[in-house]
């Protein structure tokens, strides 16, 4: 055995485990996506066991493509992930630039700011949808009710009462409806992941060339042009990394959607798969393959773009 064979062998367990983890379930998904396979069907009991004799070809794919939820789910997936990426990066850069310079209590602010990142997704969703965003009992509901009460009491006041009587009563927003629950998911995930972006941008800002900045100030560059031409380019690489890591986590976003959007039509691809999987395994598998294709497009794009910088 040569000097290097053993070290090379050491990496095989990890490779084999990941290969099995990737290939076995995925090939089953591929197989199920081409056959008729349902969990319950009294008229056609033969469909309830997977078998090649139930071959359906691309039938499941056609079924999924024609279902009205499919395009909606893709659209929703992209809307949710895209919004989260945009908001976390924008807020992250803003906050990082703001708290980068030393000030009293910087360490404590850092700790306060990073905390949401460690909250488990299930708690995150339960906390926001119930205690904060609930239109009646959450903070939102209480705040809206408080403002309405205030306006109502002002309407009875002398002289200015007529002015406040022109004010409409404020309606709280229900975040459990189809349109708004996607917003709720975006709010809670942005809350959780902005701290992560801030932390990374802050770390990167500490290595920013200060001499260059001072030279720019001497040349009369304002705060904005310093930010635009020095800070932002410096953050290019960390921004790319934040986008990639978040894309990895959010493409399979599930717990938040499941908790917020019980049956109200706000579906993303993972949610749609879960719904199909209650009975129609063939359709669930075909949707799964679509999800894999979508993830691959994103992955190839991101790894091409960012992978090289990681390897340097």
């Amino acid at each position, binding site marked *: 055995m040569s000097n290097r064979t053993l070290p090379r062998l050491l990496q095989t367990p990890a490779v084999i485990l990941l290969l099995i983890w990737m290939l076995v379930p995925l090939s089953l998904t591929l197989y199920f996506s081409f056959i008729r396979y349902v969990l319950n069907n009294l008229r056609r009991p033969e469909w309830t066991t997977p078998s090649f004799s139930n071959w359906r070809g691309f039938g499941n794919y056609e079924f999924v493509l024609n279902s009205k939820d499919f395009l909606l789910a893709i659209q929703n997936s992209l809307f949710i992930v895209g919004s989260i990426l945009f908001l976390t990066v924008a807020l992250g850069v803003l906050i990082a630039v703001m708290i980068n310079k030393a000030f009293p209590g910087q360490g404590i*602010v850092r700790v306060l700011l990073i905390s949401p990142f*460690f909250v488990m997704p299930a708690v995150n969703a339960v*906390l926001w949808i119930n205690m904060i965003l609930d239109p009646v009992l959450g903070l939102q509901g209480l705040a809206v009710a408080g403002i309405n009460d205030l306006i109502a009491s002002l309407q009875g006041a002398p002289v200015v009462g007529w002015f406040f009587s022109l004010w409409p009563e404020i309606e709280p927003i229900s975040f459990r409806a189809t349109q708004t629950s996607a917003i709720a998911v975006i709010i809670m995930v942005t809350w959780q992941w902005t701290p992560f972006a801030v*932390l990374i941008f802050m770390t990167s800002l500490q290595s920013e060339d200060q001499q260059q900045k001072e030279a720019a100030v001497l040349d009369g560059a304002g705060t904005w042009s310093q930010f635009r031409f020095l800070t932002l380019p410096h953050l290019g690489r960390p921004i790319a990394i934040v986008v990639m890591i978040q894309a990895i986590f959010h493409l*399979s976003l*599930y717990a938040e959607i499941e908790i917020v959007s019980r049956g109200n039509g706000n579906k993303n691809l*993972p949610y749609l798969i879960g719904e199909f999987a209650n009975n129609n395994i063939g359709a669930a598998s075909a949707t799964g393959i679509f999800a894999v294709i979508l993830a691959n497009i994103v992955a190839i794009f991101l790894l091409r773009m960012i992978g090289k910088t990681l390897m340097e």
Partner: protein
Amino acid sequence: MAIVATTTKFSVYGRPVLAWIVGLLFFFPIFWLVLTSFKTDADAVKPEFLFFFTPTLDNYLNMTENYDYWRFATNSVITSVFATIFALAVGIPSAYAMAFNPSRATKDVLMWMLSTKMLPAAAVLYPMTFLTKSLGLFDTHFMVIVVLMLINLPIVIWMLFTYFKEIPKDIIEAGQMDGVNTWGEVKEILIPLAWGGIASTALLCFIFCWNEAYWTVRLTTTEAATLSKLIEGNRAPEGLFFGRLSAVSAAAVGPIVVLGWFCQKQLVQGLTFGAVK
């Protein structure tokens, strides 16, 4: 000159105040969760008790009765600890091999490992359920541990790889000259030198395992169910149990948030694979 130009009134007073406001805003939901956990279920939804109320510990004292908290917590600890140990046991040799004996394929292997993370879990939802059920592993600690280990393995290997790469190759080679075998190299040179990196990798892996909410929810019912499953199962109380739900939620995230405070620096280096320092 430069100093004069940057020391405006805003940067002396405005910036710190703004920073504190942002920090407090982000922390507020967690503060609110903890605050609500000390209210009775009835008080928790009354506006007059928003900030001033008679605090009670009942929600915490009745956690076992209301939610069987400790059983789920024990499951979370068992599965996260063992998944982390196994991930390190497989990850350390692998990262060692790639960092110190790289081949031409090493880069591709690393990229491929990362790409397995991008495979949407939902795509293999039914096959995984099918496989675990037919192997009799559904709702067992073993299965949860294996899955948690596998989904975190790519990140673990990447993190370890970036830490190991920092160690000068000469030290390892000097060991080889002295006739130390591979196991000796790992045990006597690598692990002592990379101890900090290994510890932060373990911590981060543990946090991810603890918070995982797809497979732990889908592959368990009662026996091996973790805290994610517990909270997910009680997700829609419609205002009835805000107090007790807050208490159990705070108990589920508290230890991890505190743990996270201690490893935030390592988190940056680890999760950006050493690209941001």
